[in-house]
């Protein structure tokens, strides 16, 4: 009899504060497993954002810094420039990364900063009680788009992966989802690949993970996965948007 699945050592043995069924938990696990499997836990320094995952510093089993809202990529830059041999990653929500922190993530990519980012897009501001995010879908109701997001007023949701892929410094950009076991497995692969890119010294890597917020969407967890599948994936197509290592391979 073989254990085919058990709790990763990449997470501390504590229970998280996340709401029941919130896929932040899954994404934490994938991130932690990647750290563990790549053997970098003891030289990893993670950066937690401001958002529901603000307490990530209590969960990942490695050194952690808690950054100001949106500034995780800048903080990670500071860390990486001081300790280029350590493994540095940020874990950020869509309010954090795609709204207030836009300049910081764009310029970390622009500098080809050799860090990795796990970007959790749940189309809402979870922590503050469900306000509209730049990634909130057209028509989606939130506490600051009470009648549903009106693209004529607030624009069409921003596609971060596509945008960052246009920046010369970005080495690896992929969008994944955690709505099904199969997609979770793919997500894990992408995160691990992104981390390897850093270990290979190739530069900036980011994985956008489509995620749920059952609480603020007001949808039961299993249905929230369905909602993600049916509403988010069509607008936010899954796939790789940039992989410099492959481009280089083709170049040869």
């Amino acid at each position: 009899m073989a254990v085919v699945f058990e709790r990763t050592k990449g997470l501390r043995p504590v229970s998280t504060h996340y709401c029941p069924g919130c896929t932040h938990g899954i994404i934490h696990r994938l991130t932690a497993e990647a750290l563990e499997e790549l053997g970098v836990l003891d030289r990893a320094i993670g950066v937690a954002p401001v958002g529901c995952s603000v307490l990530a510093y209590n969960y990942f089993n490695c050194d952690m810094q808690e950054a100001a809202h949106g500034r995780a990529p800048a903080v990670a830059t500071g860390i990486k420039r001081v300790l280029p041999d350590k493994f540095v990653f940020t874990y950020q929500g869509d309010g954090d990364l795609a709204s207030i922190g836009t300049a910081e993530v764009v310029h970390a990519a622009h500098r080809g900063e050799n860090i990795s980012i796990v970007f959790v897009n749940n189309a809402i501001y979870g922590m503050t009680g469900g306000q509209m995010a730049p990634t909130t879908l057209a028509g989606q109701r939130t506490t600051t788009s009470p009648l549903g997001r009106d693209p004529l007023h607030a624009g069409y949701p921003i596609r971060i992966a596509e945008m960052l892929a246009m920046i010369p410094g970005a080495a690896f950009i992929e969008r994944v989802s955690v709505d099904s076991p199969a997609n979770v497995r793919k997500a894990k692969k992408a995160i691990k690949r992104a981390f390897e890119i850093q270990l290979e010294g190739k530069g900036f890597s980011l994985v956008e993970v489509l995620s749920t917020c059952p609480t603020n969407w007001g949808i039961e967890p299993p249905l929230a996965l369905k909602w993600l599948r049916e509403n988010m994936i069509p607008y936010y197509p899954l796939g790789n948007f940039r992989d410099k290592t492959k481009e280089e391979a083709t170049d040869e």
Partner: protein
Amino acid sequence: MAAKGKVTFSRDLCKGCGLCVSACPLKILEMDRETINEKGYNPAYCADPQKCIGCANCAMMCPDQVITVERF
């Protein structure tokens, strides 16, 4: 038919979200409506352990690392 897999739940960590239940291809997981765990939730459990194929889909979807899966 002998079970090919085995799932174990750290029941007190469970938040009763039901994601494992809907992920199991054999539909053998259920919420235990009788029990309230330390955290105040009805935890999930395996209602028909014999059928488990050890595919780990349940564990893959559990946000709280409640489930350990073994395969024979």
